[in-house]
């Protein structure tokens, strides 16, 4: 058994060495760009390149937000408010669970409970928000979806503040603080009360939200 394992490992290692050697040998001919040390006649060209590089770097920096922005790491369930490189607020959050739920009567259509990734803006700031429960909240519990909007309203579950960033997604509070740090939501971003208050104070309508 031990010999078999040893022999298998040897074969695998041999294969790896062979293939790595082939890969390396394929890389080498492509790497034949010659580095020209700047001779006297090249100095002007070098200065032009340096100036171009600096100008482009400056252009890039001008695209960065000129105000605090919200950064959300959905893999590690963290929310930061940053101003340039400085972290102004660091909070444990809960983000989307990634679980799916079939939409009843719509064939293969499904809800996917992911927090959306990309760049968004704070579109609304609410105090004492009311949760208007969407269809999935009823379907998930095996309940009939009410026709009356009033039957969807639920008070006190989103905390004292909510910041909307489009398509029904919010940064809001939670009753389930023990679940902070986990991917448990239907796509919204949950925070505890004090962090939510901090984010509410720091953000304004138009504040960028970067989610990855």
């Amino acid at each position, binding site marked *: 058994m031990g010999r078999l*394992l040893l022999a*298998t*490992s040897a074969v*695998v*290692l041999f*294969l*790896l060495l062979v*293939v*790595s050697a082939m*890969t390396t040998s*394929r*890389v080498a001919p*492509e*790497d034949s*760009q*010659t*580095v020209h040390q*700047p001779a006297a006649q*090249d100095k002007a*060209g*070098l200065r032009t*390149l*340096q100036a171009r*590089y600096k100008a*482009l*770097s*400056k*252009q*890039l*920096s*001008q*695209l*960065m*937000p*000129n105000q605090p*922005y919200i*950064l959300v*790491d959905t*893999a590690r369930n963290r929310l930061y408010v940053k101003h340039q490189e400085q972290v102004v607020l660091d909070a444990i959050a809960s983000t989307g*669970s*990634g*679980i*799916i*739920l*079939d939409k009843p009567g719509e064939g293969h259509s499904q809800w*996917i409970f992911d927090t959306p*990734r*990309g*760049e*968004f803006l704070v579109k609304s700031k609410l105090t004492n928000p009311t949760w208007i429960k969407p269809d999935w909240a009823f379907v*998930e*519990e*095996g*309940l009939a979806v009410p026709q009356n909007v009033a039957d969807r309203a639920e008070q006190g579950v989103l905390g004292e503040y909510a910041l909307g960033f489009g398509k029904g997604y919010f940064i809001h509070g939670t009753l389930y603080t023990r679940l902070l740090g986990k*991917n*448990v939501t239907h796509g919204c971003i949950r925070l505890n009360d004090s962090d939510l208050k901090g984010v509410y104070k720091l953000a304004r309508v138009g504040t*960028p939200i*970067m*989610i*990855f």
Partner: protein
Amino acid sequence: MNLCAILLLLAVTTPSWGKDIEVFPDLNLSNPNELKEATRVLEEELKLAARPQTYLLIDLGGSTIHIKSRGIGLHQIPITAWSTGSRENLKGIHRLVARPSVVRRKIEPGASVEQEPISLADMPADYVLSFSHSLSVTVVPSVASDSLIQSAVLLGKVGWRNVKDWTSRFLTDRSSEPTSYLRLTLSVDHAQSLAWSLVDDMAVVIRRPTDK
């Protein structure tokens, strides 16, 4: 208003954006080849940073994958090792067209048992990403396991992937359409983190190293 007050006011109100940033801290500003490459990448990145989106900058020179938005580095993933064939084909902006699927758990309406949310551990660590312009990026996990058997299994997988990739490249090189490939070796955690952060149609720009 005295001079001090005016200076203080200027210091507070002057926009802090637009100042020089170090996009590539390892860049040798006296090497024209490095400057040309950095300038090319910056030109590409400026196009991406001008729009609200997250994108990847694979910095082979700095051995780091950057997840970025608006020029801001949101997250960094270190590259353990990498290899490629033709570096020429890595130029330009590539868009993600295919990535590994993730097994998602499904909610059974009305069920009392809660489904386990998706997590980083559900992400693959050994996968292939297909990008536009025939770019294929293979991500393989580095062997850092303390178990001999796990290491042997992983080595076997990576070895088999090497053989498959080499065969594929060997065959592809004979066809009419040029295909470029990049193989990235990441730690298991970082490979899973990258898989988590990818979104459909995500753009990538690659900074190629130049000879020192």
